[in-house]
């Protein structure tokens, strides 16, 4: 399994409730290595008010209660519900068993389940998640109706080459192109865990206008940069938002499956238990403990 170079993956999957359907997302992560999904706050609001919320939020429940306003709380709850149910579906785990933790640079991850990388983004009532068993993943979603071109934003986020490229586009396409570049840069720097601390003018992208072609990473000079195997894509979701994603390469060829039961070596765990049991953990001695098999040397 590997990312198809030059081509975007399937469009992000819209999921309307904790019940899924999740099969397509599971399949995308299993076969393609990563998956993208999004949900609308309106669809998820009933679940966000449900009794299971507290257990699902876990240690984040206090942060949820401290949020100001119903809307902010709902959006927060929906983002956690979507992320944890999506990750649990891929991992074959209970969503309430997942702990959303942060690395020192602020990047979220599932504590103890680092093999499945996750990313979250929202704009208005749209919440997007990315899941990857390859390398790190970053997603960013932004409303297409937002005015970006001509506001000075492109001066802050685009390389000189990108600004020149914008000038070659028909006037009416420029805003959408800036949104694509901006979300791609957000997605890439989120995947790297660097956020806006990484200068957005230190790298650029091609921004094909079709969702099926993958954007390419460019240097400040506008020439293709060595992307080190990173994969980028940008999609239109719900006919009104741009969702961009960046997926880093798998560090090793054999990444293997990511179901939770595969994250721990069963045989070894049984052997450790046998060692504890047989040995009764005497404080001394060089006695050889069993591994649950016959024929141990004496």
């Amino acid at each position, binding site marked *: 399994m590997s990312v198809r170079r030059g081509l975007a993956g399937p469009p992000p999957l819209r999921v309307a409730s904790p019940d899924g359907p999740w099969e397509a997302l599971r399949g995308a992560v299993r076969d393609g290595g990563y998956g993208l999904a999004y949900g609308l706050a309106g669809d998820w609001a009933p679940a966000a008010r449900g009794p299971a919320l507290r257990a699902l939020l876990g240690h984040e429940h206090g942060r949820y209660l401290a949020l100001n306003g119903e809307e902010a709380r709902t959006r927060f709850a929906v983002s956690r519900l979507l992320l944890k149910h999506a990750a649990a579906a891929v991992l074959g785990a209970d969503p309430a068993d997942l702990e959303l933790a942060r690395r020192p640079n602020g990047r979220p991850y599932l504590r103890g389940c680092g093999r499945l990388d996750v990313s979250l983004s929202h704009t208005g009532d749209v919440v997007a998640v990315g899941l990857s068993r390859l390398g790190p993943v970053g997603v960013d979603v932004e409303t297409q109706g937002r005015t970006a071109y001509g506001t000075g934003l492109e001066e802050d986020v685009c390389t000189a080459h990108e600004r020149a490229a914008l000038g070659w586009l028909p006037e009416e396409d420029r805003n959408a192109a800036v949104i694509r570049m901006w979300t791609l840069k957000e997605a890439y720097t989120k995947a790297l865990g660097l956020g806006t601390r990484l200068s957005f003018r230190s790298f650029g992208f091609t921004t094909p206008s079709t969702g099926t072609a993958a954007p390419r990473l460019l240097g400040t000079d506008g020439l293709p940069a060595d992307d080190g195997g990173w994969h980028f894509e940008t999609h239109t979701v719900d006919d009104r938002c741009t969702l961009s994603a960046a997926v880093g390469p798998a560090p090793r060829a054999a990444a293997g499956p990511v179901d939770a039961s595969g994250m721990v070596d069963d045989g070894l765990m049984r052997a450790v238990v046998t060692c504890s049991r047989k040995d009764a953990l005497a404080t001394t001695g060089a006695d050889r403990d069993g591994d649950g098999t016959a024929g*141990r040397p004496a």
Partner: protein
Amino acid sequence: MTEAGPVAGVPADAVRQAGLPRQAPPPRAPAARRAALEAVLGDPGDAANPLGDAGVLAAERRGDLPLGGEPSLASFGLHEDFVPEGHGGRLAGLDEAAALLRAVFRRDAALGRGYGSASLGAALYAWCFGTAGQRAAAARLLLAGERIAGGAAVEEGLTATAADRAPLRLTGRTAALVNAPRAAGLVVVPRHAGAGPDGESVLFLRRGDLPPGAVGQLSPYDVTVPPRIPAGELVLADWAVPAGAVIGEAGDGQWVTRRVAQARLPLLPSMAVGCADTALRTVLTAVLTERGGVRRMRSRVTRRTVVSAFADLLAADCLSLVTLRSLHLMPERSSIWSAAAGYLVLRLLQEGVGDLMTVLGTDSLRDGDGLGTFHKQVRDLAGMPPGPAGSAAALATLLPQLPTLARRSWTARGRPAPEALFRPDGPVPPLAGARLKLAAADDGLTVLLAQARDGLADEGMADWPVALSDELAALRERCRRLPELDPAVLANPRGFALGERYALLAAAAACLGVWRAARRAGTGGFLAEQAWLLTALGRISVRLGLPVPAAASDHEDVMLAEAVRRCREGHSLDLYDTALGTPARHREKG
């Protein structure tokens, strides 16, 4: 700190029981050995040095190992450091061996693996569980400058057939084995035909005994072959294994493999500290020379990121040091720390170094001016084996022990590990494989955190981060409520999260232990200062989700000054503060 270690010739028993005498010790052999190796490897900043940063980068682009790298290491006799002293080599402590190979990893991880760590890892089977004859045979091979390949995993594709009183017969093929085409010895672990999941044998095979053509070279384009290191596979058809090849007993492979892994798996992460070292040094050098679009030293981002990466590197080194020394000093207790190191060390290094990209400003993608070396080291860290299999093994070792250790340990009443565990270059007794245990009876490492709960005023520390001690108590409460000896309860993400919390606390305790030992040694130096300890603990606290009080700004200044000094003087950024090759002279703007 300086390259000063404890006194040579102190009996290991005395060290274990009483700690070390408090006197200024003369340099011990390991520091001199590292300095000699550094002299062979030369100045990393010298563009004409084939083992310098530029030379290694050029070799990587050619898909080769650096020119003259392996012959230089061979003439230095690095292979002698993989053979125990008792067998005519120089191997005393695995911490020393890892620190030595780390010097090679600072230049090029592929060179370090291909020349050294692959052979050392395979040879551990002989050192831990070999007969006298097998140990002597392995020593003869290595001392002659030959390599031993294999031993990384059970071979699913190779089957052993055992008949009564007849030798084992092997059929099938192995996965890709690093160095196999040029190895004089091979350690392979075939499965037994018809046996369940636990029927394996560890075999030590000599190349000369194998049928002609049995070892095939794999294409460097094969996805399972690590870049730039020759790899091959062993293909056999009903071949009779020579007498005396089985390490341990036939059918006992899993038993042996798991115990060897306890010593083998923490080695590579410790060497990988060298990759993070060079990455950090490269970025710091770019900052100091004010190159291109790189952020300046006065930038908040630069200061915070450099200090964080330095602190993570030291924390990773502390956990590695404690783990590798525990294999010698308290092998019965080492399993849980070995697992914590296997789970955490590479991640600490990756997280600290990865964030340095922000310091490169608008040059973040450029690979000129030495920045290519930064990107290379980040890639090497990301690709370091064993990957997911390593964390699966680490969690499998950690999880079942948590409920037991929570009941038996993790309180201030526990007996803390001896101070010798925390002293870089302190002498250790030889490795005793038979004493390695998969489960620890208690945990003398995290006891340090519990005992610090009431403050460390005795140690001259006014503001111990109590939240870390409380986190250990909270983990203890949660794990005590779980049933013992029932891993099914923990083999889920909730359990994995507990395992990660333990690993982070073990790293915090290792830092505390190293700081305290340096302080008690009374020789002063950077490691005896609170700045690095509290910065490293702050980073660990953030990872645990604990509130972190704003760090004293003078800590940042102390850390930065030390990092800059080491960078300017050409010293390593790990616990050893080793002078690298010939010190580089960096031209800086006034």
